[in-house]
């Protein structure tokens, strides 16, 4: 084993807190916890490697590690599954990487008050396997459902595929225990942070700890919502020969008022071109399949069956053609696990297949601006594809965004393939400029840079102060108040400005 990149004194103190088995300094342990699935400057990998990985199992251990980080002014970066599509879990200044995967206990299943209490290293799929015999379900359903974890969902303020029906992570976490950057432990949520869903006592702090990307603390326990396990699921995919018809149909479907509506997704022409090229469900679809709307319903049988009829009527009456059960049911089931898909792209110059990583630039946008943003985003992508030869446009989708209110705004993504092996300083700089341009379009049209991933990534993070205005100054004050020594994931979200 090579020599640890941390001092003997720091290593010894960490071992004293956690035991030697939970303090890792070998290269595989550190390098495998460097990046996330978001595009990464692979040519500068060493810049982001943590010095040491720690794997606590209890809140007390987290407290002691955080206090040690403060005392020694050592950066500390929390990490759960590392599946985020922003860079929250990527160390910018080396230091201690605190991995919560061994904090994976289900503490309490309360069928009376309908909650489950878990540690942050619990995965939702595994949790729901445990819950199934009880007839209940924790409906936080990201595209990384089989591999992401509750702690990461909190730190990134995750977005759920079925959020229109059940809400997103911030709605589904009733309360949580947080170790603040100084080592102080607090509970936030309704009232004292127990199992109460709604309280009006004083200030609401819970949402402060959603989406901070590991800059404000480490969630060490969470009380989660339990809903009745769905009796029935229905998915319908409709095709359209043009975007305008699909766009209007998407609006009609999302405004249907059906309580079981879990989501409506609009795939644009570029997405269909990509799917027709590389997705088995679409390769042999006729050429007039230019756009698709996907709809999913969940609930009791008595709710879903009549709602499904209404969805089919709306789809038909607004110009959609049902793509059949196999595509509808199969493609919907595949959406619970998009991380399992091997990724390749095509070079525009030759059509040759090359390995590409998947980057999805997301934004929160109102329904009214979707067509215009779509045109501007694809134009930006096209320029960079032509200019650099390492990118590929994998199309856009717009997905109903509001919790229980799917009609007004959308999570909108443009998926871009990047040939990471070709990244160097010039190409990486081009990529970050591309992201800045994409984010600027979202802001120009009154949207937010991100609906679900976070805006910590190089490129778009520079526009965060523009989006937030005076609220960003308040956030910097909060960061400095909670983290006086700037040890908790330093460098993220431009929060270094808080210490200038």
């Amino acid at each position: 084993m090579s020599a640890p990149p941390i001092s003997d004194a720091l290593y010894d103190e960490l071992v004293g807190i956690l035991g030697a088995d939970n303090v890792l300094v070998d290269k595989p342990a550190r390098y495998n916890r460097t990046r996330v699935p978001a595009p990464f400057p692979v040519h500068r990998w060493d810049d982001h490697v943590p010095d040491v990985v720690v794997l606590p199992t209890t809140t007390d251990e987290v407290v002691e590690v955080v206090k040690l980080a403060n005392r020694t002014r050592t950066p500390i970066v929390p990490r759960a599954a590392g599946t985020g599509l922003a860079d929250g879990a990527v160390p910018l200044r080396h230091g201690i990487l605190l991995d919560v995967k061994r904090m994976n206990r289900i503490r309490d299943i309360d069928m009376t008050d309908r909650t489950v209490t878990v540690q942050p290293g619990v995965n939702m799929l595994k949790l729901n396997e445990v819950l199934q015999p009880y007839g209940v379900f924790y409906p936080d359903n990201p595209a990384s459902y089989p591999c992401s974890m509750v702690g990461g969902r909190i730190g990134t303020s995750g977005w759920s595929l079925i959020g229109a029906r059940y809400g997103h992570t911030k709605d589904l976490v009733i309360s949580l225990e947080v170790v603040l950057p100084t080592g102080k432990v607090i509970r936030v949520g309704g009232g004292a942070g127990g199992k109460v869903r709604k309280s009006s006592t004083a200030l609401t702090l819970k949402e402060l700890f959603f989406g901070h990307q590991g800059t404000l603390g480490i969630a060490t326990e969470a009380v989660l919502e339990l809903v009745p396990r769905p009796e029935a699921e229905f998915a319908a995919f409709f095709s359209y020969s043009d975007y305008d018809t699909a766009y209007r149909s998407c609006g009609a479907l999302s405004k249907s008022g059906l309580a079981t509506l879990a989501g409506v997704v609009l795939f644009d022409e570029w997405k269909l071109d990509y799917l027709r090229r590389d997705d088995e469900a679409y390769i042999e679809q006729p050429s007039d399949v230019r756009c698709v709307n996907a709809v999913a319903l969940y609930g009791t049988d008595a709710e879903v069956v009549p709602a499904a009829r209404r969805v089919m009527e709306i789809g038909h009456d607004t110009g959609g053609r049902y793509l059949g059960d196999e595509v509808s049911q199969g493609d919907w089931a595949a959406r619970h696990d998009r991380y399992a898909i091997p990724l390749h792209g095509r070079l525009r110059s030759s059509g040759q297949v090359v390995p590409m990583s998947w980057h999805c630039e997301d934004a929160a946008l109102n329904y009214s601006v979707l067509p215009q943003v779509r045109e501007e985003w694809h134009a930006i992508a096209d320029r960079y594809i032509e200019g650099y030869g390492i990118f590929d446009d994998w199309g856009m989708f717009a997905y109903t965004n509001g919790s229980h209110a799917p009609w007004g705004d959308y999570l909108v993504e443009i998926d871009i393939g990047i040939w990471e092996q070709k990244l160097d300083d010039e190409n990486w700089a081009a990529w970050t400029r591309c992201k800045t341009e994409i984010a600027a379009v979202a802001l120009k049209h009154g949207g937010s840079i991100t609906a679900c991933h976070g805006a910590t990534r190089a490129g778009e993070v520079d526009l965060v102060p523009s989006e937030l205005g005076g609220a960003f100054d308040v956030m910097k004050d909060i960061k400095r108040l909670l983290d006086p020594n700037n040890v908790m994931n330093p460098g993220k979200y431009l929060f270094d400005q808080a210490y200038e």
Partner: protein
Amino acid sequence: MFGFRLAAQRPPAARRIKDDVIMRFDHVYEVDPDLMQTYPQQDIPAWDTARIVDSRWDHLAWMHQHFADRVVSAGELGLPPDYLGDDAGVTPPT
């Protein structure tokens, strides 16, 4: 532990589906090898392709069962035929 001879596990001959897509196994679409000159496709024995395809169907079925007790199909909704698409496959009512 078991072994196999790759030569005895060669896939069937390819047939062309589209300009840039071929098919060797039914329902398994593959990129035209002419487009995979830079990064050639690795040799996979036929049994392994079958295993991957079967696992995919198992996975989708598992996901359905994981999220709900049953999947409602369009065919059981009692809708007029034109609501179900011209040639779209619809599971009949059970």
